């Protein structure tokens, strides 16, 4: 590939988005960040540009305004080589059970909007004949649990969307789709939670694994931390009759 490669991170104000963009920037990739919170994304872009010396830009984007997604892509300074979507909202599960509006927002933020956006990127990449789509889903989507089933259901939907998209694009072999399933990550989103240390990683680790799966050692589905894959395999193997009585 000639010239500078570029990455677009959707959710560029988040800790994982910041770390991921910085990882690519350290390899000289041009960085574009898109986020609803423009100022927070600007702060991250300045950090990335200062640390790495690469060119950065920031786009305001509210993914829930799905009518604007087509215009957003058309207005980008350049169609990126890789797009990484880290949009997500854990939401307040107990509140969502009595607040349909919140439940709807959680499902739209984690499933509907990212899927609609990435479908458009898939088409633009297909037209160009190259590109990588990285969707950050969650292990929470592997099995529905009492503590976060709106979030988990939406992430399950998103994981299946990515799986299907990958399946569709694999035959032509030009556009790649990567599903990333982080377990516990120390971020603003989880700052209030007590996380089990052996299963918890820093955003830098997620960024490193994404970069590797995209650039140096191509993979389709990755778990971060790796051992979470085993944990989820066990959880998924539990018979429903037993699982439904557990609180994990």
């Amino acid at each position, binding site marked *: 590939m000639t010239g500078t490669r570029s990455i677009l991170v959707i959710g560029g104000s988040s800790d994982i988005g910041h770390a991921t963009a910085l990882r690519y920037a350290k390899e000289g990739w041009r960085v574009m960040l898109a986020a609803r919170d423009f100022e*927070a994304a600007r*702060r*991250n872009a*300045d*950090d990335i540009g*200062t*640390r*790495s*010396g690469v060119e950065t830009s920031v786009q305001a984007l509210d993914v829930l305004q799905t009518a604007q997604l087509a215009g957003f892509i058309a207005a980008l300074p350049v169609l990126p080589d890789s797009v990484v979507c880290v949009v997500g909202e854990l939401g307040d599960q107990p509140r969502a059970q009595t607040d349909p509006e919140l439940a709807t927002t959680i499902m739209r933020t984690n499933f509907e909007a990212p899927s609609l956006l990435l479908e458009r990127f898939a088409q633009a990449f297909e037209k160009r004949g190259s590109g990588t789509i990285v969707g950050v889903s969650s292990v929470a989507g592997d099995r529905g649990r009492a503590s976060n089933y709106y979030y988990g259901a939406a992430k399950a939907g998103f994981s299946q969307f990515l799986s299907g998209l990958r399946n569709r694009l694999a035959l032509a072999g030009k556009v790649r789709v990567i599903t990333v399933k982080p377990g516990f990550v*120390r971020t*603003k989103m989880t*700052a*209030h*939670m007590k996380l089990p240390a052996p299963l918890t990683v820093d955003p830098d680790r997620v960024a490193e694994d994404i970069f590797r799966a995209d650039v140096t050692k191509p993979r389709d589905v990755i778990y971060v931390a790796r051992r979470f894959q085993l944990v989820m395999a066990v959880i998924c193997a539990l018979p429903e009759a037993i699982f439904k009585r557990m609180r994990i």
Partner: protein
Amino acid sequence: MAASSPEGIGLSGWGNYPKVPTDLLAPQTPAGARDQLLARTGVIARGAGRAYGDAAIGAQSTISSRGLNRMRSFDAATAQLTVEAGVTIADILAAFEPRGFFLQVVPGTKFVTVGGAIAADVHGKNHHRDGGFGTIVESFRLALPGGEIVTCSRSENAALFAATLGGMGLTGMILDATLRLLPIETGWLRQDTRVASNLDAAIDQLEGSASTTYSVAWIDCLARGTALGRSLVYLAEHATRRDKDRLGPDLEPFPRPRYQRLSVPELFPGWLLNRASMRAFNELYFRRGAAHQDEQRLVHWDPYFFPLDAIADWNRIYGRRGFVQYQCVIPQGRARPVLAEMLDRVSRRGDASFLAVLKQLGEGGGPMSFPLRGYTLTMDFPVTATLFAFLDQLDALVVEAGGRLYLAKDARQSRTTFESGYPGLAVLRDIRQQTGANTRLASHLSARLGI
């Protein structure tokens, strides 16, 4: 990153002594930090927690700056870098050493934040020549306890700027700062090692090399009698391109940071640190050093400036009771007899740190900066039942000589020792009165010392 825990936790400095309860707040933006400051009393900012004692533990609340970890801008023409207060020296060197820039003043660990480095006005091995961290600070923004955010520099709010250098966070919370980086030709240091057979010889070596940029003596605290104060004296300069081509033609000019390869387990057995093991270690250390005597060699910037950073959590070797790092400065004229007396007492006591560090210092940058023209001696002591009485005796020697103790290391000095060492205290108190910081900002250190 520490989670916010408004319900309170036990917090300590790098020495693991003392450990005291405080609320710990973790704002994620400078604006958030200012809001937390405004909402709290008995509050102090905390950077990486590398101050050894109780300087960065709030009397009631502690605001971590770790979320303020973004760099903002760099101007290659002026070498000016603006960063938020929680950015560490390690972050800066990782990003800029490969691009040919260094920091002219670095302390003995790179894991300190910029905010902490300003608040303690930290010094390096070149203080006698180049001054403290404050000298590379162009300006910073300070959140005052009333919520106002003011820019401080040598031309704007100059008194507040000076009092914040070494002011231990007691003037306000530093939100961001603009630093002047040092252009370098390579990331290597050209080092000379000299062996000094006793304290006098070590001081002679340091005095005789005052024009050398970096100088430091590592003293064997277990040596006694005529060998009291035997040292390895390390002298160094940033290697030029020509130095590197001559001494290490195959080396890359700007080597990357070295990563931590070792770490100390949480339950390191304290009995491993005994007189026999320390003596063996020191013997090895000195033989290795002496083998390089009078030869110039290139040393990577990371192990040169930050040797202990290679071992993660090295503070754990002193066990659960923690340790005190004792660092004093003795004015030039009194240094030889007073330091000899201190080393003699320490070597006779026996449980002292195996190594001590001796450095030259120049004048301090602000009224509360630790340095004064003279010699600074640094030693580690595990906390024991008899330690504090012993250190009080060392304090008496320091006071009598007109010296002082470093607040970034302190966990136990008395008010009288502190007050006699810091005549600039009146200036800090004055500023605190003017800004209202005296009723709002308080650390365990400031409460203990009555600042």
